[in-house]
């Protein structure tokens, strides 16, 4: 339904037979020709997070062509053939084209999912001049959902498209149309797109895994932690289907972050609940996290395929094929296991109990949960100071050799501080939070890269050790050796930078930034 720049779309209310009105207003000698009808199926795609829509694009398949359309003007930005109608696809899997580039720019990690399919019925008439030459086409379109599962009502439209070079002739006619009052009105592409999404009940879900909570600094912290847990548990649930269907790796990733965030906040603010009432939840969340580790690892290494291949000389590149095909097989296995777990008795039971617990709004006993009733602002300031102190103390204690364990632990300290900052972000002036997060970024990037590289090396090492000697694995061993050497060099470079980066973080400036952030809070 991409628009030629000159199409005028009219949204109809009721049964206004616009074709008659048009017919009556034509210049002398002109007429409306015979009608023809056609049916076409439109399939709309977007990622789970609606990244195309957020970037102002509609992604639509029609007649074997996938089109990327600018929502603002309905103009076709790019298109590429798409023979079938897959339930989902990755931008990277499309043939090299401008469309592929545009969609990669929306998301390289997330799959584009078939969000809705509609069948559109179009009746079209030619508007002919005195020479019987077509000067424009007039079309009437009505749509319904392809699967007929819903009674969704889609708006109906008339559209008038002048042929190239016939705008002038047509403008007189358009001016002669009846007043639009309520019968019909001119509508834009964006409006028509949104009408389809609304009718298909796809709008307003607005999924985002990012935490944007508005907290009241004077409200008891108990209430706000419960709100956070409500958010994280809803994120977990929202991602279950995507994990089960194995649509893309971000579903599991978001699920895991939600699990970690829940657990981390519960532990960092451990006086908010009565310890004996949350012990099961903490254990449960830890177990849940663990159960996803292997599946996530397979995802991560499979995503690294291009990166690893590029690190190797051409002669060794194909030697990694068995490595990746084993990873794929392992992934299928881990996926099966985790899906079984999701569908089994334990997980739904755990989530149900967790939700019941979160729903309890009664303040716990102040003796065993001394923080519960305290104002959120105060608790936030204390918890953040404590977490920051931990980062600074551990960082300063890190010796010249900067051991693996030291960096691993420091990374976790940083993550905890970050979760707290994100949770309480709405309590601070937005600029100050952004500055603090920026200040932390270099340090987090350094530690993140270090741990990431270490984990990869460990994984590759274990693969190397398990390589059966009789499988002709020399090539693969050489490739893994090559990767290990490269990753090792990278990691040591990262390690060598740690002290420099940490001392930049451990500065008066950071101290002042945090002071500015937290003083305001305590006073609030």
């Amino acid at each position: 339904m991409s628009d030629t720049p000159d199409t005028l779309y009219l949204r109809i209310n009721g049964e206004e037979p616009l074709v008659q009105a048009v017919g009556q207003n034509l210049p002398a000698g002109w007429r409306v020709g015979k009608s023809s009808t056609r049916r076409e199926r439109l399939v709309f795609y977007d990622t789970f997070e609606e990244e195309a829509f957020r970037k102002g694009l509609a992604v639509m398949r029609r007649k074997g062509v996938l089109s990327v359309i600018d929502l603002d003007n309905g103009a076709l930005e790019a298109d590429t053939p798409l023979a079938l109608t897959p339930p989902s696809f990755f931008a990277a899997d499309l043939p090299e084209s401008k469309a592929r580039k545009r969609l990669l720019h929306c998301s390289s990690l997330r799959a584009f999912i078939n969000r809705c399919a509609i069948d559109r019925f179009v009746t079209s008439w030619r508007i002919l001049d005195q020479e019987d030459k077509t000067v424009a086409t007039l079309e009437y379109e009505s749509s319904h959902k392809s699967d007929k599962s819903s009674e969704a009502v889609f708006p109906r439209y008339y559209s008038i498209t002048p042929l190239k070079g016939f705008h002038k002739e047509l403008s007189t006619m358009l001016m002669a149309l009846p007043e639009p009052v309520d019968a019909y009105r001119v509508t834009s592409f964006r409006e028509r797109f949104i009408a389809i999404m609304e009718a298909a009940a796809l709008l307003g879900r607005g999924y985002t895994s990012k935490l944007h909570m508005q907290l009241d600094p004077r409200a008891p912290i108990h209430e706000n932690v419960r709100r956070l847990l409500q958010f994280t548990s809803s994120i977990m649930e929202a991602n279950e289907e995507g994990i089960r269907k194995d649509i893309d790796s971000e579903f599991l990733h978001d699920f895991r972050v939600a699990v970690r965030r829940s657990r981390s906040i519960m532990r960092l603010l451990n006086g908010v609940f009565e310890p004996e009432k949350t012990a099961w939840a903490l254990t449960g969340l830890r177990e849940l996290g663990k159960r996803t580790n292997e599946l996530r690892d397979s995802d991560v290494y499979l995503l690294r395929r291009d990166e690893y291949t590029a690190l190797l000389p051409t002669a060794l590149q194909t030697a990694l094929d068995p490595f990746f095909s084993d990873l794929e097989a392992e992934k299928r296995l881990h996926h099966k296991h985790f899906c079984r777990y999701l569908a089994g008795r334990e997980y739904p039971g755990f989530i149900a109990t967790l939700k019941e617990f979160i729903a309890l709004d009664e303040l716990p006993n102040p003796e065993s949960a001394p923080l519960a009733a305290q104002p959120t602002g105060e608790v936030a300031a204390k918890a953040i100071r404590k977490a920051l102190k931990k980062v600074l103390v551990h960082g300063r204690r890190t010796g010249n050799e900067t051991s693996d364990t030291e960096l691993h632990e420091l990374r976790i300290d940083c993550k905890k501080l970050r979760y707290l900052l994100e949770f309480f972000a709405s309590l601070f002036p937005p600029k100050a939070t952004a500055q603090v997060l920026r200040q932390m970024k270099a340090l987090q990037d350094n530690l993140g890269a270090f741990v990431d590289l270490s984990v990869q090396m460990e994984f590759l090492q274990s693969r190397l050790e398990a390589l059966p000697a009789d499988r002709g694995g020399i090539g693969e061993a050489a490739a893994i050796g090559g990767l290990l050497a490269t990753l090792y060099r990278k990691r040591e470079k990262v390690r060598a930078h740690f002290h420099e980066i940490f001392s930049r973080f451990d500065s008066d400036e950071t101290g002042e930034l945090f002071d500015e952030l937290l003083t305001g809070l305590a006073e609030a």
Partner: protein
Amino acid sequence: MKTIALYSIKGGVGKTAAAVNLSFLAAAAATPTLICDLDPQGASSFYFRITASRKHNSEKLLKGNSKILKQIKATDFPHLDLLPSDLSYRNLDIELSESKKPKKLLARNLEGLEAEYRYLFFDCPPNLTLLSESVFRASDLILVPLIPTTLSIRTFTQLIDFFADNGLDSAKIAGFFSMEEKKKSMHREIVEEYQSHPAMLKQTIPYSSDVEKMGLTRAPLNATHPKTSAAQAYSKLWEEVREKMDK
């Protein structure tokens, strides 16, 4: 963009019919095509039921680009547009002769069409003038319809000589026999003798009343009666032309 001129120094040889049908066939493969009616008689504009807007004239054509683009009109057939002719085109030669580089003017003026069209057809007026020379320079292929008569052959050889004498590439010329009547022995003999000439295409277009009726239907024969022998001949001719250009 490939530019194909339908040219003949003589009138009534099936030049416009070929331009209309070949351009229709080119566009039918969803390739954006423009037919440029340079003949002040405006026969191809007539076949597509298009008249130039009142503001269009030869001056606009010679001013080039943006002025030309505004005058282009869509035909009733997908991917096929037309730049209509205007009676003022009869002055084109005088105007060309007054410009600084008349022979290259047309080529330069058409540069903007490159982005929009894969094929550009010229339906030329039947004469040999400055405009014709300008068209020869701007075209990748000059298609010359010939009625199989000795006089036609003579004119065709003269055209090839003219190219040689004026520093034009005669390899761009491709003749084809048009309005061929098998029952006439002269036609048969001439076609047989010249069909394998390097400057001639193999495919011939038969004489047909269906082609004449295009004046009534005012649409390409290949759109209204694709099964007729003449329409089939145009299809094969287009295949041959396309292959020749792809070489």
